[in-house]
């Protein structure tokens, strides 16, 4: 039952995100727009580049969707409202999202097109930049919660949300999450002005529809993860828990989608250098600080 509820809210959330994305990218707000766009996409030809690696080309979007859904599976929306409350939930989230990389490499390599291939390998570079900054902040979160279960992690924030407890980790995690979902300004693998669509460039019709849907699911999963790890999940006064989850996730997702509108895309070299020289140092410092606080303060 709760699985069905989560899946339906996932569908609703993905649609809401599509509305927000159209507004952020194309500047018009239309509640029905994504529905028409999706139907139109299904009606367009879905082309296959010749000399392509068809298996990769077909599998890329599907694997992306699987990865997104697996990540969503460990996000709690309310007490009891979660698909699977794994004891290693935070780690599993990581594992699922690692396949985003695999899917994008497949999608990039598959069509044998220059833009897509460069985009796919670029994303591997981007992954190397953000990966540690996803993992290390989560470790600090798990230290406080004494568990990897996402439900426990939310419960551990009863008295103080992690965003206040470990603000540094929050910032690092959000930036890394945007990199993972290749959201502007970290949209190196589908940069319109540099690679004319990149990994998405060869996808048309129904395959593109699946790819876009998968991306929305991933953004939702990451917004959900941010909320779970740092913003107290379903915790909040007055409103029922599920409403708090929905509001927080949508606000975080909308913020992640629209912030890139106001700045140019980062350069790959700078991104890598910043992540490794500054980001990892800060992430290690964050772990240390949280470690000291966790020993001194009993919350």
């Amino acid at each position, binding site marked *: 039952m709760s699985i069905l509820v989560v899946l339906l809210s996932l569908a609703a959330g993905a649609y809401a995100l599509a509305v927000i994305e159209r507004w952020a990218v194309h500047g018009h707000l239309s509640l029905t727009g994504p529905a028409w766009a999706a139907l139109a996409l299904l009606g367009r030809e879905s082309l296959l580049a010749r000399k392509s690696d068809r298996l990769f080309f077909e599998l890329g979007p599907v694997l992306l969707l699987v990865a997104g859904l697996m990540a969503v599976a460990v996000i709690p929306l309310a007490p009891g409202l979660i698909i699977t409350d794994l004891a290693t939930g935070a780690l599993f989230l990581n594992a699922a999202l690692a396949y985003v990389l695999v899917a994008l490499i497949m999608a990039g390599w598959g069509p044998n097109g220059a833009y897509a291939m460069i985009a796919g390998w670029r994303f591997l570079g981007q992954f190397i930049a953000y990966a540690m900054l996803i993992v290390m902040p989560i470790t600090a979160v798990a230290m406080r919660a004494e568990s990897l279960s996402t439900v426990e992690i939310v419960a551990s924030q009863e008295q103080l949300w992690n965003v206040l407890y470990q603000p540094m980790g929050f910032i690092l995690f959000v930036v890394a999450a945007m990199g993972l979902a290749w959201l502007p300004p970290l949209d190196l693998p589908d940069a319109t002005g540099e690679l004319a669509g990149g990994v998405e460039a060869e996808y048309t019709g*129904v395959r593109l529809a699946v790819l876009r849907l998968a991306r929305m699911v991933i953004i939702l999963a990451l917004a959900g993860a941010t909320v779970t790890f740092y913003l107290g999940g379903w915790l909040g006064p007055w409103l029922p828990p599920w409403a708090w989850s929905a509001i927080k996730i949508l606000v975080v997702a909308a913020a992640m989608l629209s912030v890139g509108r106001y700045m140019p895309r980062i350069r790959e070299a700078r991104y890598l250098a910043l992540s490794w020289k500054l980001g990892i140092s800060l992430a290690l410092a964050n772990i240390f600080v949280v470690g000291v606080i966790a020993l001194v303060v009993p919350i």
Partner: protein
Amino acid sequence: MSELSQYAILFGLSVGVFGFVLSLYGFARAIGRARAEPGKDVPATAGTLSRDPVWVRYHARYAGYALLFLAFDMEMAFMYPWAVVYREEGLIALLDMGVFLAILFLGLLYGWSQGALRRQ
């Protein structure tokens, strides 16, 4: 809910995604099939046909980062179980992991000094 049934749910969901995607493809197929035409199946390159295959030995300039990444990724295997028992173990855990991370950070600094952290 037992752990095995949770894994079964996850497995079922993955299979379900394939089913969902296949049904979408079936719907799209019902509307029509793609038509083969000249130039249509060549990867798009902004108005110029580029028919040469691009699967060549790709020069990844982030190779240095990639090498260090492998080491850091390895280290995460130890971080998670450590994090779970951190508060229980207390100071010893902090010191232990402090030493471990310091060693790793040393490796990072070495790589940095040698130029692993730059475009090659």
